[in-house]
């Protein structure tokens, strides 16, 4: 569960002012907002990549406001995927487990499972440069899931994809969230995407987070 209390962040022209919201455990929450409203800034702050001017971030009941990014256990998928150009797809999926000194056999099994889940098996030996937009996003998602995150933060992961890939990835995200039950915060400005994915909808506007059209799956139209 993510709980944000009185969170204030300054970044460029964007000011997030005393934000209050929570993301329930095991749910798929979509945060919508116009371009420049501070969606990415908010995700980066939750991940510990931006300093906080005030307030508190609590993850699964613990105050992590001053924790370093590595200590938060958040799987982060940025908008552009930010794949590492010097690593293969296999090495991307193995990056987190390798850091945690996971035994080789366990790591191999994990990478194989993730590759199967995300349809990446034929790409394991490939470099990021040769991948399509959809493949890149799947690798970025797999890299984030490989650390068994308590929370998954997705920053417009389906942006700039063609319609078919967009639909496929949308379904994939939903399936993975259902299977893993990982608490997910997905940022987008696409209302159709939000309708398809969200258990809970939040709106970021004028530096404030407000509940969207539905706050629970039961209220979803």
């Amino acid at each position, binding site marked *: 569960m993510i709980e944000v209390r009185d969170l204030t962040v300054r970044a460029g*022209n964007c000011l997030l002012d005393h934000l209050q919201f929570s993301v329930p455990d095991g749910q798929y929450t979509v945060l919508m907002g116009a371009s420049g409203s501070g969606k990415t800034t908010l995700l980066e702050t939750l991940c510990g990549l931006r300093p906080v001017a005030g307030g508190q971030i609590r993850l699964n009941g613990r105050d992590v406001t001053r924790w370093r990014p590595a200590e938060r256990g958040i799987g982060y998928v940025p908008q552009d995927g930010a794949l*590492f150009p010097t*690593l293969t797809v296999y090495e991307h999926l193995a990056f987190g487990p390798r850091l945690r000194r996971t035994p080789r056999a366990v790591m191999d099994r994990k990478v194989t499972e993730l590759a199967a889940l995300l349809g990446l098996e034929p790409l394991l030996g490939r470099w990021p440069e040769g991948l399509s937009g959809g493949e890149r996003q799947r690798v970025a998602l797999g890299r984030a899931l490989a650390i068994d995150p308590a929370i998954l933060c997705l920053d417009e992961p389906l942006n700039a994809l063609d319609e078919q890939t967009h639909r496929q990835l949308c379904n994939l995200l939903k399936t993975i969230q259902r299977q893993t039950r990982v608490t997910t915060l997905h940022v987008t400005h696409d209302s159709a995407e939000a309708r398809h994915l969200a258990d809970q909808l939040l709106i970021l506007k004028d530096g404030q987070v407000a509940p969207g059209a539905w706050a629970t799956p039961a209220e979803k139209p």
Partner: protein
Amino acid sequence: MACGDQQPPPAPRPRVPPDWPFFLGLGILGGTYLLLILLLLVADTFYTTFGELGRILVDPEIRYSLKLSLASCSITALLSLLVAIPIGFLLSQASRQLSAYRAAHAGARLPWPFRVKQAGFLLLDTLLDIPIILPPLVIGLSLLILFRIPPFKWIDRQVTYEIPAVILAQFMVAAAFAVRTMRITFDQINPRREQVALTLGCNRAQAFRRVVLPQARRGILAAATLAWARALGEFGPILVFAGATRLRTEVLSTTVFLELSIGRLEAAVAVSLLMVAAAILVLVLTRLFGVRDTVISGAGL
């Protein structure tokens, strides 16, 4: 449309001036410089003979000078990387942090601790450029003076006018170029990748080693090449700080000077050609390695 209707005549094709004069102009301007370089090399080549080249290659003094040049330039390139990688990374990080802070407080009066940091950064950045701007002789002279002052004075005999002086003189200038190259390299690397590595469990050192440094390898190669080439051509600081003693501190650049000073122009030209050949060899090898590296990894900066 009725048969009798008159169609308006199509608009005449718009004429745009051709592009070739633009490229011809660029070609002429750039080509002039390229031609000058080629003419220099051709002039050198025709001024000397194969016999002279053969003679200098067996001359023990010049062989020593060649060996010392290759060894000292390689050590200098390595030492330059040793300081350029950390300085380049730290400068790049500091620059990003300062920019982010300025952007976050755009329009507001910046607090004095930030302004002090900014001034400190600018001062540091300027200091690192001093070896590039200073006349080479001044660098040599400054090194000479430095080793007259404790604690450097205590090792003066082991350094000044000895081989370490050659390396130190080369290093002082070459490292400044390597630092600039590494700073630009790190500036060009997408910081988002390092941030993702941090969320995946890396500390800053691990993110640097596993994510940033591999992306910087082409820049590292470029910095090493530049430092090596600068070291090969260094003359002024070496002459002042290390001297030009035959079979002791003589490197190729000082050989050219020594040969000229005793009126052996052909030998000086032959040694110059040797330096040109060594420089071209290093440049070609590193470029080939760089291209191969890029193709294999499929990675760019």
